């Protein structure tokens, strides 16, 4: 059994290397706000500074443009959650129908979905902006929520999930029993879809929370920015990246790192709490075979 031992060792080593690759930069980020900007450069990269520095960075950060940070976080929450609800309402039934019913244009719909998913965003921003303007939505929360809620990725996830995990026999049986399509969806499809709902919800939320391009281009004012665009504004106000900025501004790398940590916290917490549902839940669908 030495071969097994070698395999075990190699696999363990690869996992450990990946662990370092994934975690080390994040660890550095976590430690960054405990240092001052100059300590960040001069001290050992993984040394701990002091909590006093964290407090100071926090004060600088919340003092930036009268606490606009909180506005950005609230905006992100409104955009992401609003879009998430619309995404779930539209993509779950759509993926279900694509997988388990037959109708004209089904294949076309799948193909078109795939094509627009591949379309580069730079090309779509102008038309989307013009549409939003036509509808009088520019500058409103809908100008972000509506484009965000179009989530072909989620439709595909649901589609693949139902196509591979929900036995059609179950549906046929329900249909023979005289259930309407809506009843079948609500009583058979939805309960089984719980894990994929979690998956779509999670990826949609994270995707929207982290989306930069559309809000960057579409939103007119900084008090409407979501956190990602706000971080960009912080970056350009940091003397290290914009030497002429910074008279009276205290935004340096530690403040930026702290802002980044605050910005990713919701996503990490969400992941921590939903991971069980995300993964173990997918098992629920495996009645196949």
């Amino acid at each position, binding site marked *: 059994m030495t071969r097994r031992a070698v395999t075990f060792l190699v696999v363990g080593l690869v996992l450990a290397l990946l662990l370092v690759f994934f975690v080390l930069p994040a660890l550095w980020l976590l430690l960054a706000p405990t240092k001052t900007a100059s300590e960040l450069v001069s001290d050992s990269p993984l040394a701990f500074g002091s909590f006093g520095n964290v407090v100071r960075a926090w004060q600088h950060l919340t003092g930036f443009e009268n606490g606009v940070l909180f506005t950005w976080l609230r905006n992100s929450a409104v955009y992401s959650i609003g879009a998430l609800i619309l995404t779930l309402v539209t993509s779950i039934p759509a993926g279900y129908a694509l997988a388990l019913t037959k109708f004209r244009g089904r294949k076309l*719909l799948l193909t078109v979905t795939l094509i627009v998913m*591949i379309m580069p965003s730079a090309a779509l921003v102008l038309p989307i902006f013009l549409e939003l303007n036509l509808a009088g939505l520019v500058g409103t929360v809908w100008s972000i929520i509506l484009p965000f809620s179009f989530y072909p*990725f989620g439709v595909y996830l649901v589609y693949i999930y139902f196509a591979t995990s929900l036995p059609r026999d179950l549906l046929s049986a329900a249909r023979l029993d005289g259930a309407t399509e809506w009843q079948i969806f609500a009583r058979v499809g939805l309960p089984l879809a719980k894990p994929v709902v979690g998956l779509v919800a999670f990826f949609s939320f994270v995707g929207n929370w982290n989306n930069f391009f559309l809000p960057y281009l579409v939103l007119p004012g900084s008090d409407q920015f979501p956190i990602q665009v706000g971080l960009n504004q912080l970056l350009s106000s940091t003397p290290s990246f914009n030497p002429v900025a910074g008279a009276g501004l205290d935004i340096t790398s530690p403040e930026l790192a702290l802002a980044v940590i605050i910005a990713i916290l919701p996503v990490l917490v969400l992941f921590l709490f939903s991971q069980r549902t995300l993964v173990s839940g997918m098992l629920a669908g495996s009645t196949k075979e």
Partner: protein
Amino acid sequence: MTTLVAAPDRPRGRRRRSGEGGFSGPLFVSGYVILLLAFGVLPTLYAVYLAFTNVRGQFTGINQFTRVFQDFRFGPAFVNIVAYLVIWLVLIVVLTVAVAVVLRGRMPARLSTTLRFLYYIPGALAGVASILVWLFMLDPSVSPVNWLLKALGFGTFAQVLAPGHLSLIFALIAFWTGAGGWIVVMYGALDNISTEVLEAARIDGAGPWRTAIHIQIPMIRKWIVYMAILAFAAGTQLFVEPQLLQTASLGRVSPTWSPNQLAYVYAFQRGDFNGAAAISLVLLVLGLIVAGLLVTRSGLFKVDEQ
């Protein structure tokens, strides 16, 4: 209910058996179709229109394309993105599947969960966040792995950012932020394979390797293809990372490093939306060719009818 129904298709009265959903299909997809038309199809069609016309709305044929092909930045940008895509696709497909298989194998459940969480952490760090982190990781004078950078012969940040290294750097950053999420998806897909199947394989004397290669991976083929298509599409659209690194590295990275950046420059710096649309269509066609190959080879669109 909309244009989809009107699309001519093969007569399929014969195939429409009772118990396949009737009208519920179109109804169920209607909400999504509205969004798809508004934010997917119409914008794409408008982009196509732009790519074949000029600023005065006159039809230009392929002139926009020949014009952008002749741009001195076009060739380098595509060379960059192709190199990036190759590295990125190999990394993401090979490593995520391999890691998911290992994590799904005989490993204490708690360890597996913990590892998945730890691998996922960078997934929350997109855009500005990841650039801030990597700016420090890649600078030999402040990096926690400066010994590694120095061993590779890089003494300064500028040397790390030599033009030849950028494809690899962006692929690493993309892998760093993107892999965790896909590991979770792959793990979930593997979890979906019933234990009886795996048990049967084990009784037949298949080891973990053979089980993985002959049973697990073929069974999650759809997910792998799906991931490959999306990873490829996302890769062709690379924008935020080079753009931010350009700012943060004080200009060492060309502002037109990737084709999507070039399209952005066309659109928003020169006001040349037609040229930008032409570049985007080239990217789209590239993505479609790869997606088409993957889809036709894997039968992703087929609903299993057994």
